[in-house]
């Protein structure tokens, strides 16, 4: 047997850092204030470890899996509160999510692979800055709010305005409004060209409060309310869906133009996927 020094290790060294393992959100916020500008939070570490292996140097690493509050899932006044360190696998399998947001649970069982879903967190996913990740477009469609905290207290940032909010403090939870009438659809079939998430209230044959989130197609996922001239019923969502989707896609800023697809193709596919989803809403009633 060779000795330990001769056994090949990981190919790329991670620079040394000071480790901090807070036990509460308050302690994590105090650490972040103390080491402002010289620290990074770690949730699941899916992106962070790769960044560290690729040369990112960090002086202080604040490990958040030691904070139980960040792993909680709860419901209060029609709002699903998902702790920032809840994993994708938790979203896929949690009984509360299964009852109150079954469509989200179903979509979340399909992202990444099971090993990644077990490691990765919803908070890390939306703060990663990777335009291809699924968390942000889904949460924009669901009209979710990201709750950040620092030593001054909490601050809520709508998912659609998350760009530039990465330094707003410690992301503690994501709040998703829920209702039995709320539908959620996400089409990931054209990744990494585009992904489209749609959420709407469907009640008594009427479609209302529709919102769209678009991933992969911009530097950061974008979207918002789906403008519709007049009321939309499920009966005519199929007929009018294509026109509504085309209008929405036409009003978006210019999508990315890269090796995966041209900007024009992306815009067209956003309209195609959204039209299909509106038709699906109509068919499901």
């Amino acid at each position, binding site marked *: 047997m060779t000795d330990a020094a001769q056994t090949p290790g990981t190919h790329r060294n991670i620079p040394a850092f000071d480790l901090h393992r807070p036990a509460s959100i308050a302690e994590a916020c105090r650490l972040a204030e103390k080491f402002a500008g010289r620290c990074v939070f770690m949730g699941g*570490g899916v992106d962070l470890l790769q960044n560290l292996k690729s040369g990112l140097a960090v002086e202080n690493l604040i490990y958040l*899996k030691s904070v139980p509050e960040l792993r909680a899932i709860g419901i209060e006044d029609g709002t699903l509160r998902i702790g920032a360190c809840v994993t994708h696998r938790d979203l896929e399998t949690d009984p509360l999510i299964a009852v109150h947001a079954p469509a989200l649970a179903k979509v979340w069982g399909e992202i990444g692979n099971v090993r990644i879903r077990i490691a990765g967190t919803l908070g890390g996913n939306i703060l990663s800055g990777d335009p291809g990740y699924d968390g942000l477009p889904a949460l924009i469609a669901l009209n979710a709010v990201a709750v950040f905290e620092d030593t001054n207290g909490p601050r809520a940032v709508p998912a659609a305005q998350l760009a530039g909010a990465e330094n707003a403090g410690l992301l503690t939870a994501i709040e998703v409004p829920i209702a039995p009438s709320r539908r959620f659809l996400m089409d990931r079939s054209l990744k990494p060209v585009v992904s489209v998430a749609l959420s709407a209230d469907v009640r008594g044959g009427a479609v209302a409060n529709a919102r769209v989130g678009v991933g992969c197609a911009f530097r950061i996922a974008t979207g918002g309310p789906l403008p519709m001239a007049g009321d939309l019923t499920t009966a005519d969502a199929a007929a009018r869906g294509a026109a509504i989707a085309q209008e929405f896609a036409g009003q978006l800023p210019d999508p990315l133009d890269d090796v995966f697809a041209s900007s024009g193709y992306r815009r067209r596919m956003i309209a195609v996927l959204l039209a299909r989803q509106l038709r699906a809403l109509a068919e499901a009633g």
Partner: protein
Amino acid sequence: MKTVSIRFNLNGRQVSHEVPANQTLIDLIRRQERLLGTKLSCDQAVCGACTVLVNGQPRAACATFAFEADAQDVVTIEGLADGDGLSAVQQAFLDNAAFQCGYCTPGMIMLAAALLQQDPDPGEAAIRRWMGANICRCTGYQMIVDAVRAAAGAKS
């Protein structure tokens, strides 16, 4: 602190280490614990060759810090057999010749063991979905699926 004292259960025994905070779990397992069954390949949590179980869940040991094992229960490929008696999954891989070069095998077996702990009788679709997390570059997937089905049958 740049080093951390950790204590955890590894293959059924308590172990203690003083580890650098930046050390990965696979380096602790292979270099300090001398357990060489866990393989390093892509080093970026993609291939799954380094899969170990942490509290029964499959994790890429190359993308997990050693300190994350603190107070947890870790099982590597060496922890599956009971003395000379192979586990049901190991025996099924042997019976079905579910390996070619064998490099992905420890990770595949750990991944399959986690599946059967959570779902003792998965159908073929569930097996394929779950096992899709790991890569066999020899592409011997059919035998791997057969082995997991056989192991499920042997357990149930």
